[in-house]
């Protein structure tokens, strides 16, 4: 009987050992939501895909030579492919001053569609965050591609830790939204918001 109790005790102690705390981050835009009052969107985000290695809850850190590590204890609160939709829609909308549909509920009303692919979004050992993305502007009526663009930038971390990484990644995504906004209405002669 005694050995059994001892084994049980080992298990209880093992289970009771303290696991590191899980920290989750929301990807939310800091711009005020003014778009809801506007007219129905004539443009929206259609297909949004993220690279497989970042389609995971953990924040990804590249440690060199292509080796990546998805954090176990620092995670996005929402899947990126979901939160990116509303984040980018809000940011692009803020940049262009027009309503941008985040979901394809009213896709039939759209004149333009944005298909976005996030290729890289991770922190690096050299103390920076990197974002590589490309997108296409599509004429929703004729289903033709009007233009294709790509974006690749890095942002240095302001401090150690994942908080700084999240902040840097959000900054990069905001800049991506601005870049998209700049290209969005250019093709058909619409006024485009000025973005550097």
């Amino acid at each position, binding site marked *: 009987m005694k050995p059994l109790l001892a084994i049980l005790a080992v298990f209880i102690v093992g289970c009771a*050992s303290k696991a590191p705390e899980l920290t989750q981050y929301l990807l939310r835009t800091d711009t005020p939501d003014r778009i809801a009052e506007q007219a129905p969107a004539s443009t929206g985000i259609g297909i949004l895909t993220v690279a497989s290695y970042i389609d995971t809850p953990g924040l990804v*850190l590249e440690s060199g030579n292509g080796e990546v590590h998805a954090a176990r204890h620092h995670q996005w609160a929402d899947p990126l492919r979901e939160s990116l939709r509303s984040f980018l829609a809000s940011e692009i909308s803020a940049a262009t001053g027009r309503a941008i549909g985040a979901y*394809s509920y009213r896709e039939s009303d759209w004149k333009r569609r944005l298909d976005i692919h996030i290729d890289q979004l991770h922190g690096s050992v*050299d103390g920076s965050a990197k974002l590589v993305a490309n997108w296409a502007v599509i004429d929703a009526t004729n289903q033709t591609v009007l233009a294709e663009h790509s974006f690749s930038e890095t942002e240095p971390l302001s*401090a*150690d830790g994942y908080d700084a990484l999240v902040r840097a990644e959000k900054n990069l995504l905001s800049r991506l939204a601005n870049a998209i906004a700049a290209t969005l209405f250019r093709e058909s002669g619409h006024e485009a918001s000025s973005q550097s």
Partner: protein
Amino acid sequence: MNEMKPSVSSGRKLSGVWIIPLVAAVIGLWMVIHTAMTEGPSITIDFKTAEGLEAGKTKVRILSHEIGLVEDVVLKADVSGVTATVKLDPEAKPLLREDTQFWVVRARVGAGGVSGLGTLLSGAYIEMAPGAAAEGRKAYVALEAPPLTAVGAPGLRLTLFSDRAGSVSIGNAVLFHGYRVGRVEAATFNSDRQQVRYDIFIDAPFHELIHSATRFWDISGIDFDASATGIQLNTGSMETVLLGGLSFGTPPGVAAGEPVADGTEFTLYGSYNAILENPYEYGTHYVVSFRQSLRGLAPGAPVEYRGIQVGRVERILLKELSGMGMGADRTDVPIPVLIYLEPGRLQIPDSEDSVSLLRTNIEQSVRDGMRATLQTGNLLTGRQLISFDFYPEQAAAELGQFEQYTTVPTIDTGLAQLQTQVSELFKKLNALPLEETVAGTNRAVAKLDGALVSLTAALDSANAMLSSTDTTELSGELVASLQKLRVVLDGFSQNAELYKSLNASLRSLDATLDNTRNLTRQLSDKPNSLLLPARTEPDPIPRANRQ
């Protein structure tokens, strides 16, 4: 006057003393006669070798009782053996008959057992088996081995002939229903009959089991038979498996025959199956000729009439065929097969009359369409058999003649028939006028072009008709139907409840799958993480760029 006359006598008077030699002579004569009368007989016995024989020492015994002594052993002039002179006791004289047997008893070790161990110490001796024939023989030839059956033993001595020696040898048991009732006494090769001759002895009272319908078969070893009817394994007793032996009995359905006398000849069959296949005495030969492959058709293969065995294949008459020179066309010469049909198998009496009846029947049946065919009896072993059946579509035919045998007409069946049919089909295909057909088709296509022009004109007319008022009304109905269809499809549009509900469910399913993926990833990293605590390694911390 009385004169004195001298008495004259020869003066020679037999002296009494002579009585002595006379008596001696009488006594001597009596002694000679007595000796001759009371002395035992002296005989000569020829042996192959003098092994164990010693003059003055080797004794002659009967039932272990001493009755004589070897007096002398001399080598024969031609060195073919030795001749022993044996002096027997007077009491043995009446035992010396024509069939009296002598043999040397010495230690023997054989497959049947060990005998004569006592002679290892006492030395060999000559055993005598008294006979029952006429007296007076003085010279004998010794047996090489002790006789298996005592002279005069009650029973029946039979002769068996076999085509092959098999594994039956001298001393082997003769069994009846597995019980030992006799033995093989001798095995010799009969050059006249080109057969092996076995002399067997059946002990009384079992000799009464033998009658003219009795069959003998070899039960030596293990009998393994794979034939058209399947695979069969037969064994006798352990003794016969190891040493060999014979068995006898009456085939099923055959009535008991007449009692037999000593020396009756029987055939020794190779196996019980051979007897089952040949239980009848009367039969008749026929020849059937085939153009197809005879692979798998072995002598002994069954000849059947609608599945009932009526005979067997005797052999393929290749020798006779080659003797005929095959004629001019060697490619199409049918190969004759000799078959043996037995009327007894058809449940009619096994007699000459039945054979005549069978021949008459076959002659009539062939006119009515009966033919012989070669068929596969066992797909596993590929054994073939010959089958008789009626083929009414066949033209009437008559029996033929091959050498001294009557032939029954045959037809090809099964694969061979299929092969012939396919071959004929291809011949017909080859003969088809394909080129002319193609040319004809081309002409037809040209005509079709003309027809298409006509069709276009017809369609123009149809268009004109469709644009008329009646047809327009029809399209109005079509529009109404399409509107209804649109109402239905609106239920599936993006703003419809159904669509929203479906979308919510899909998002919920998506979230569930996400969680499942995380769990799968965790389990893949650490399969035991459900039971044991997860690793507590901290994540690497991203460092700010200090440069």
